[in-house]
């Protein structure tokens, strides 16, 4: 860190021998390679998770009809999906999307790639640990993927794995073997996340470039930092609970099963436990995990919006305080998942108040995003479109949460499509759109080439329209009481008129998944044939944009010194409309200034 070093020289300093293919691209300790490994792996799982969702949607639209493609697994039933398969599909759709896509694409892919670059470090604090955090995902990939092929199939107890359907091996086919593999997979995802979070915290605290104070960090780094804190404090609880459930299943302990719990003539344990205990432990992690899945995206969106509004981020410190507030409050709201679970209803009131209050920081962030584009000069690039759609969609996801927070209203809409609408607006329309924006935005830094803007916009428009047609009608289904996780709801008089709307949503979902082909082609083509990007194609202030594209090993070919925060767009101090963090003020001592790179 103390001396200026060139990437090639640095590589040899570190290794003392020419880097082989294996140590450069496979077992690499370079944060950028690890970040891109995470990105590719999670994008592949994104495709798998999306296809699982389509199979689920097909069953909801046309129950018991022959399923295209997936139906080939059921030749005896004429391609018709049995209800067991349906429960497995929605369980694995959620598990894959949450544990193998959203959490690792934010923390693993973008956290890894961006943290050292944005704070002016040459790598993570613990490069070997970083490499392990990626490779510990692979057992999880194998456990989740392989569970489809064991007897009984993959886990089918819902992604929440509530006992006793998850602990009693006879309660559902997936509980026979798939659930064990699911728990093992979860454990490895947890280990990987923990390694990552320890590394991110150390790196952000210890390795910032000279002049980069905490309050000069980009919001992306603040998002990653708070996320890492949440992971570090909440994950041990889930890991412990996972082991307890594993023991309930395999060793006959009874943490989560009451006495005499018999399902299908099968008793797994002597009992003495409490099913609600799992729900408390699970949500103690998984509610903070909801913020783990959104805070980094909020950070990245803040950076993109400020850059393309050509204007400083409105209310930087309130933004920082509000994500810290979300993190703090995030630990005391888990009970809102359990309002009708049988938990003491008195507790419900407490959790309702804390849950209502957690809407406040989200509101503050939204107002500040609006404040950021107010009076700017907005450039409608593809990343900016995705970032602005994040804001438009997050408003919906944020507001619909208030319905579930209100305990009496939750009595009716709990476990209906209202909640399905809510978390898809936050996780797909929010996080995934933010992630698309971030990919378009940092792609030139990752691969040194630009993605195609026109096709990027086509991808945006199609995704935006299909997404809203898929997810918005879920609100009114929920208002109608349509329950989630039902393989066929139409034999209820209450719900049988909702099938045409569900068919419309399924076709929109198919359109949404198909639109991603445009993105995949654009991504792969641009990696090799896109126009070559310079160091700073978007004219941004962040430190990462002063490094070469793509940065060599060791990231910077000069020692970055930071003179200001990352949001100095339109500053009167300079004639340009941006003012990079490394550019010394005009009156600074010339001898101390780093060489200029454009």
């Amino acid at each position, binding site marked *: 860190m103390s001396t200026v070093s060139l990437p090639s020289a640095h590589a040899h300093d570190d290794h003392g021998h020419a880097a082989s293919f294996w140590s450069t691209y496979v077992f690499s300790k370079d944060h950028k390679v690890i970040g891109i490994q995470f990105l590719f792996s999670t994008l592949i799982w994104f495709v798998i998770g999306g296809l699982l969702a389509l199979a689920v949607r097909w069953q909801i639209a046309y129950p018991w009809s022959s399923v295209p493609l997936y139906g080939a697994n059921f030749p005896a039933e004429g391609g018709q999906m049995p209800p067991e398969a349906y429960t497995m599909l929605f369980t694995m759709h959620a598990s894959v999307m949450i544990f193998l896509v959203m959490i690792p694409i934010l923390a693993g892919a973008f956290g890894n790639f961006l943290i050292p670059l944005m704070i002016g470090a040459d790598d993570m604090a613990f490069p070997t640990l970083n490499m392990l955090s990626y490779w510990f995902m692979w057992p999880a990939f194998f456990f989740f993927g392989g569970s489809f092929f064991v007897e009984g199939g993959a886990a089918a107890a819902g992604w929440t794995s509530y006992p006793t359907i998850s602990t009693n091996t006879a309660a559902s086919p997936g509980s026979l073997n798939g659930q064990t593999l699911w728990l093992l997979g979860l454990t490895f995802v947890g280990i990987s996340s923990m390694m990552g979070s320890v590394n991110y915290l150390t790196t952000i605290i210890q390795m910032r470039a000279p002049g980069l104070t905490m309050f000069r960090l980009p919001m992306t780094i603040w998002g990653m930092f708070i996320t890492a804190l949440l992971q570090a404090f909440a994950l041990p609880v889930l890991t412990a609970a996972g082991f307890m459930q594993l023991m309930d299943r395999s060793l006959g302990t009874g943490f989560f099963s009451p006495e005499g719990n018999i*399902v299908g003539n099968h008793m797994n344990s002597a009992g003495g436990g409490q099913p609600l205990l799992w729900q408390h432990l699970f949500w103690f992690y998984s509610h903070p995990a909801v913020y783990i899945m959104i805070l980094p995206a909020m950070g990245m969106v803040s950076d993109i919006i400020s850059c393309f509004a050509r204007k400083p981020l*409105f*209310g930087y410190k309130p933004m920082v305080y509000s994500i810290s507030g979300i993190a703090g409050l995030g630990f005391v709201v888990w009970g809102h998942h359990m309002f009708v679970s049988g938990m003491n209803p008195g507790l419900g009131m407490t959790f309702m108040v804390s849950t209502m209050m957690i809407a406040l920081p989200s509101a503050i962030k939204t107002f500040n995003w609006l404040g950021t584009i107010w009076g700017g000069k907005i450039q409608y690039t593809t990343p900016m479109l995705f970032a602005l759609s994040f804001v438009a969609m997050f408003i919906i996801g944020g507001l619909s949460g208030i319905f579930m927070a209100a305990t009496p209203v939750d009595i009716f809409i709990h476990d209906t499509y209202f909640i399905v609408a809510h978390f898809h607006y936050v996780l797909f329309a929010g996080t995934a759109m933010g992630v698309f924006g971030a990919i378009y935005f940092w792609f030139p830094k990752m691969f040194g080439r630009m993605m195609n803007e026109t096709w990027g916009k086509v991808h945006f428009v199609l995704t935006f329209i299909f997404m809203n047609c898929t997810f918005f*009608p879920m609100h009114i289904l929920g208002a109608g009481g349509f*329950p989630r996780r039902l393989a066929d709801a139409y*034999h209820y008089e*209450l719900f049988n008129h909702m099938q045409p709307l569900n068919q419309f949503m399924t076709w929109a979902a198919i359109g949404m998944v198909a639109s991603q082909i445009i993105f995949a082609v654009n991504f792969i083509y641009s990696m090799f044939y896109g126009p070559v990007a310079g160091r700073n194609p978007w004219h941004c202030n962040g430190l990462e944009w002063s490094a070469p594209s793509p940065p060599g090993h060791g990231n910077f070919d000069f020692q970055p010194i930071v003179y200001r925060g990352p949001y100095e767009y*339109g500053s009167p101090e300079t004639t340009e409309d941006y003012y990079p963090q490394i550019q010394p003020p005009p009156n600074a001592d010339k001898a101390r200034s780093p060489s200029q790179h454009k």
Partner: protein
Amino acid sequence: MSKYWSLMALVTLVFGTLCFAVAPTTWFWDKPIWLPDDYSEHGHEIDKLYYFILALTGVVFLATEFILFYFMWKYDANTNKEPVKYSHGSHSLEIVWTIIPAATLLFMAIVQFNSWAEAKMQNPMYGPDGVAGPNPDLEGKDDDLLATVEVTARQWEWRIRYPGADGRLGTPDDIFDVNELHVPANEDVIVSLKSQDVLHSFFIPNLRVKQDAVPGMKIPVWFKVVRTDPNVPLDFEIVCAEHCGARHYAMKGRVIVHSPEEYRSFLRRKFQEQSATVDPQAATAAGSAQ
């Protein structure tokens, strides 16, 4: 041209409003896709709170999406000739948009308290303070009008047990049924909810009732069906709302509403049928083994 991207916020606004506007109508579907008819005493409170939140969040939704649209339209780089407003924020604005939403949210939480307490904490079996002693309103009334029913969920059916003439559950005159819950109209109904195997959830959309059934727990659920015209037959569907295995979707029950007199005669008839077919002693033994 690029300012037309702002339409994305306007389209969101219009589409969202339209969805909620047409849902309660029959323009696109045979029946409204909206809150099902409510026949319970407490349900209108829940519906009122739903509309209250819908109105408040609706206003915020319209306002923020419109502001987003307007800013995106006005501050497009190609048409906005004014210099960029070089501003890092506004302390007073931050205070305004912290305090107003905070107060609103707190208010929204507080107005829920009574309705929640009524639905989940003030068991009509006990006094109005919700703690001890029999309800004076119910004292002196015929015990079986109290209509305590035990509902035991299992994969994939609702097992119903009524107390017999002695008004007590777990005695030889208990009456058994499956998936059909008979209740008296305009009377407090108290269900003792249990699960035999995995989690289930006892959901009656028309009565705004939902409560998970948890193995190892006995959870009280109460409601009062309001029937103004005794000549109109009333029955509602019971939906299982917590994933309980492969045939979760098929776990359907039915609530059948009677006048108090009909209800009593139904129970008597049911008991006679049951005594004629099974030995009541054996039935009790089977019942308590659950």
